[in-house]
């Protein structure tokens, strides 16, 4: 408090240095997303709860989008940034079509998103981004990004509020981590194999209902976007609303 201010007798309770006010341009809108690649399909799922603090703003605010060209995309975290990123991506995709007269490949889309994210390296989009689709060979593919554009292709990835709850489950159930052939005394790892679409959807539903139990920012509804060579389709399942 500056010297010009009159002593109030409550001096000990007040700050001795001036209070700095700074606007915080970010918030956390909760929610979680999950992408899994299969042999000839991929899925990208997200819950539909939108929160801030302890409040549920909306029980149905979708955050996984069909961007066109058989690519689905979601940016989870600060929802204003997430929406800005997705709509900017869709827009650039339109211009890509004008200029190149062809569909964009998933790998090109991924590289492009890296540039969109890194372009705001010093005022980042506060989001965990995942895109899913099919690669040039028609195999399922998932790419995941950190907020400033570092990215890699993966078999599966969870992002957002409950990522740390879901990811170990995925390691075990998709990539068979810590799974060994029975009777080999932990010497022979269980062989990797592609999961069927039915298995993947069941896995996603289990992951989200478990996350809903343990995480307050996850729940209400689950929307799964499924990409196959025939296009994108959506499935919806209720989650607990408590």
């Amino acid at each position, binding site marked *: 408090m500056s010297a010009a201010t009159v002593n109030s007798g409550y001096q000990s309770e*007040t700050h001795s240095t001036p209070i700095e006010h700074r606007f915080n341009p970010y918030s956390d809108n909760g929610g979680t997303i999950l992408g899994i690649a299969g042999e000839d399909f991929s899925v990208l799922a997200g819950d539909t709860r939108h929160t801030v603090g302890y409040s549920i703003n909306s029980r149905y605010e979708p955050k996984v989008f069909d961007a066109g060209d058989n690519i689905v995309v979601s940016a989870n975290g600060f929802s*204003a940034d997430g929406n800005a990123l997705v709509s900017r991506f869709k827009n650039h995709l339109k211009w890509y079509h004008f200029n190149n007269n062809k569909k964009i490949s998933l790998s090109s889309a991924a590289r492009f998103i890296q540039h969109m994210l890194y372009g705001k390296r010093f005022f980042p989009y506060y989001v965990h981004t995942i895109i899913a689709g099919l690669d040039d060979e028609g195999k399922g593919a998932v790419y995941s990004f950190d907020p400033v554009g570092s990215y890699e292709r993966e078999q599966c990835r969870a992002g957002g509020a409950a990522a740390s709850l879901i990811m170990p489950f995925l390691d075990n159930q998709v990539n068979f981590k810590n799974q060994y052939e029975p009777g080999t005394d932990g010497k022979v790892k269980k062989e990797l194999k592609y999961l069927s679409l039915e298995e993947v959807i069941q896995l996603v539903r289990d992951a989200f209902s478990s996350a809903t139990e343990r995480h307050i920012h996850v729940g209400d509804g689950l929307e799964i976007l499924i990409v196959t060579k025939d296009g994108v389709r959506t499935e919806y399942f209720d989650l607990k609303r408590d």
Partner: protein
Amino acid sequence: MDHDPFRWGRPNDQHYGQYNNAIANAAIKYKDGIVIAADNLGSYGSLARFTDVERLFPTGDNAVVGISGDISDLQYVSRLLDDLEIEHNYDSDGHQLKASHIHEYLQKVFYHRRSKMDPLWNSVIVAGLDDDKPFLKYVDLLGVTYSAPTLATGFGAYLAVPLLRKVVDKEEDVANVDEETATNAIRECMKVLYYRDARSLDKYTLVTISKTNGVKVEKNQQSKEQSWRFAKDIKGYGTQVV
């Protein structure tokens, strides 16, 4: 609570920027449209500074914008809405200025300003009828948006939303609610807000938008049948310590 006599009653850190403040407005969808209400109080810290602030702005033919937060920014936004309407009328090409268009525009303005670290310190609810379907969507100083069958800003998020969700919990419930039920629910919310939110008034404006009656604005509504008998039972505050 900061008891320093020199700070008591002043806008606190959380409310930095909002020297003139207006809180809480509540809205609900029903089968033929929407009902929205906002009280007429403009506070200066804990001082009830203005008691005739109009915070609901009918815009276009079938939309209303409810604004809470800093009042100077509120007045700026209302001028933006006037400009928007004027520009739209210049076009005169038979197209409607819909609630969804207004919301998208405001979201861009708010997100742009937050990205310049110079936010407009408001929370906004845009309500209306788009192609005869109820539209209700929120946007705030961060550019965060969400839509739900019931919405409220400020204290209303804690007090009004739970009451309104008893009437319409899911989007499907909207079809079963008539105008009277919706209006009564909103009026009840305004009363509860007046009971429990110190920075509120029992005088409010109520706007109903429906297919049959268009935009109906009812000003100077008074919260009726108030009962303050519970007050004598409250202990532990002010002079009544035991």
